[in-house]
């Protein structure tokens, strides 16, 4: 079981800020593929990987990063702070 968080328009498209997911996905990319297959709103949120970013346990990561031991995954658009 893993906490999956969504921010900004990723959150709006999926319709919720966080959920618990029971997954066997070994990498971020496998988790994305699994979520895309769920419902259209996930397909809409994860359709364009160019404009998607991921953090594992609150550290920025790549899509091929392994999920072993990770408790919190967050998906969001490119950051626009400052």
């Amino acid at each position, binding site marked *: 079981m893993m906490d999956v*968080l969504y*921010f*900004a*328009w990723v*959150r709006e498209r999926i319709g919720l800020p966080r959920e618990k997911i029971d997954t066997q996905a070994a990498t971020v990319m496998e988790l994305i593929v699994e979520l895309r297959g769920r419902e259209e709103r996930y397909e809409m949120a994860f359709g364009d990987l160019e404009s998607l970013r991921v*953090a594992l346990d*609150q*550290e*920025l990561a790549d899509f091929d990063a392994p999920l072993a031991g990770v408790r919190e995954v*967050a998906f*969001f*658009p*490119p*950051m*626009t*702070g*400052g």
Partner: protein
Amino acid sequence: MRVCVQAEPFDLGAESNAFAAGVAGAGAVVTFTGLVRDNGGALAAMEIEHYPGMTEKAIAAMVEQAMARWSLADALVIHRYGQLAGRDPIMMVATASRHRADAFAAAEFLMDYLKSRAPFWKKELSAEGAEWVAARDEDEAALKRW
């Protein structure tokens, strides 16, 4: 160093004075302030979402990196989230050093990282509706110089 991630407004002038008063050995203080832009008189407002927990850690890591890389007497980052009114300061960075080159470089470094690596997302609210601010290619490119 001080990092504040807060919903409350802050006073640029009061923060600048307090920061300058605390850096006895430094002769140079640089501040950067980001303001909600007033787009041609249209009443603009802004909503900023962030990632509680990661935000504070990410900014603290950036400030530590700046302190290690340049000779700084002190550094400050304040960043708001939540509802902001038009013309409100969104955030500020302040750096202090003996000579000006360090304070300028560290302030620009912190701004470049805050723009593209701190988990904030801005939504502009105007008469036409709400729209997420798109990341600028220039901001991503600016990171390459460090």
